[in-house]
């Protein structure tokens, strides 16, 4: 069924970023607590209980909603932090909880049934059977789809499921089976699913050699950028590897997703919400990207062409891709 108006779901890593997202026109903001319960547990980032309460109040005053990401997997034998996070987020008035772990979903469904449950992209649910299972078992209201599906695949999926779908439209791109990648675990000993990042900052080093910028992850040199090249993050899947004497990007280029041009098709495909990636980015990024996508979503809702967004400077490597939405490979 065609969507009339797409919901804009925007990131916030700090209270200032939350306010910036609300002020820029976000319908919904997602964020996390300052602990291991969320997959962006970076130094200096995220919300205390008090900050989240204030943030929810601020969002409400402007008719926006707040989602709380509890999207890591509780440690065996120590589920207390995750359970407390479910209780606290619900008590503070979060509109929904974003979760991936089936144990945590079960806990939230049983203890706090009145707070909506969204299935995190970390669960990597991308087919009707898997999604129906989460809906039937945990009464999940929305699923965040992995960034591996084409627009026709999303349209076909929406016809077979009975929950809302949310898709990524801007920011970091992962074309792996999300929640199941072990590249950074191999390189750094830290998991993207538990520590929340493909390149933990504690293992990242940049070296300015004058004529080139060298980026390293743990013991691995990931890339060397010449003076005139735009730089990217040192993630293994976006590393430059030398094969047959030629350095090239074998898996992914350092680039960011921008699916703005597909908004009319995504509406036609029955998508409910658009997700912008980047809880780890600053409030200037939030303000610029959210504001641009607000205009784009409104234009699409009014049947007008989506305007150029001018977000190349915010993109990794200053390059953009439409990713799997326009997939030309199997």
């Amino acid at each position, binding site marked *: 069924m065609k969507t009339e108006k797409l919901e804009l779901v925007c990131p916030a890593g700090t209270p200032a970023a939350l306010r910036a997202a609300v002020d820029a026109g976000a319908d919904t903001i997602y964020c996390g607590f300052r602990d291991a319960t969320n997959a962006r547990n970076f130094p200096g980032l995220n919300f205390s209980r008090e900050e989240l309460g204030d943030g929810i109040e601020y969002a409400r005053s402007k008719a926006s909603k707040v989602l709380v990401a509890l999207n890591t997997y509780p440690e065996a034998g120590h589920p207390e932090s995750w359970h407390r996070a479910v209780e606290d987020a619900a008590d503070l008035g979060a509109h929904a909880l974003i979760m991936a772990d089936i144990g945590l979903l079960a806990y939230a469904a049983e203890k706090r049934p009145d707070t909506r449950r969204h299935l995190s992209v970390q669960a990597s649910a991308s087919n009707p059977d898997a999604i129906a299972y989460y809906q039937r078992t945990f009464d999940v209201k929305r699923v965040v789809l992995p960034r591996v599906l084409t627009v026709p695949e999303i349209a076909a999926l929406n016809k077979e499921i009975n929950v809302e779908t949310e898709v990524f439209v801007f920011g970091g791109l992962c074309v792996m089976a999300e929640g199941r990648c072990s590249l950074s675990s191999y390189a750094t000993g830290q998991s993207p699913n538990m520590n929340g990042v493909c390149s933990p900052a504690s293992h990242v080093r940049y070296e300015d050699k004058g004529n080139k910028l060298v980026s390293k992850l743990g013991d691995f040199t990931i890339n060397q950028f010449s003076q005139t090249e735009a730089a990217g993050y040192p993630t293994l899947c976006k590393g430059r590897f030398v094969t047959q004497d030629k350095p090239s990007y074998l898996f992914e280029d350092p680039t960011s997703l921008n699916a703005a041009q597909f908004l009319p098709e995504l509406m036609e495909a029955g998508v409910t919400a658009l997700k912008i990636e980047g809880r780890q980015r*600053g409030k200037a990024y939030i303000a610029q990207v959210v504001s641009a996508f607000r205009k784009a979503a409104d234009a699409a809702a009014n049947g007008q062409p989506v305007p150029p967004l001018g977000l190349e400077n915010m993109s990794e490597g200053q390059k953009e891709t439409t990713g799997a939405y326009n997939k030309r490979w199997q």
Partner: protein
Amino acid sequence: MTSVHKGPLAPLSPVLLAGIVAGPLPHKALQPLLNLAIKQMHTLHPDVFERMTSVNSPRFLIDPVDLPFSFIMDTHPDCPSLEIIQDFQNEEELYVQANVRGPLVLLIALLEGKIDGDALFFSRDLIVEGDTEAVLALRNAVDGADINVHNDLLSLFGPLGKPADAIAQLAGKVFNRFAKDLDRVSQATLAPLQRKCDAQAHTIAELEETVASLKKQVRRRAGKTA
């Protein structure tokens, strides 16, 4: 041995020219002003320094590439400091955990959260070296603090804040106008060089294609004879 320039190039800006003029003056004369500024920041934004305790309150070398001096910022939660330094030979002796290099105007915009640090990094206008986790923590801490350098410094003037604001506004306008003029001068000066560079880049790209094609042929022949 040829020395190589590290960090982003200094833009032709009023800051660069002011730095050249101020270069011969004793830079330590600025220290009392920096002491006041960091004290004010500590008073108005204690959260910034408290958040830095999660990464053991590191010291940073802040290096505006368009000024002839740099700063060392200590993020101790009780007594943070900002020290001006010049002509250091060995970075190791500074006992800093990380370096942040970029044009002054961008560093201030970053401090105020008006510009995205990752975007500056992608465009190579900002270089960080050393403990990336410490830099990330600092970025997140200042980004969440709603710092406004103009207003924060004006609050130091108390009842004289209003006239000081008027002077600062005027200075800001002159600065912006001068910056635009210098930008135009810079573009006009560099245009012939840019054309030459574009032509050379085109030639290099063609040569690279030729070399790649030749390498392919060599590999094919080697494969046939194997």
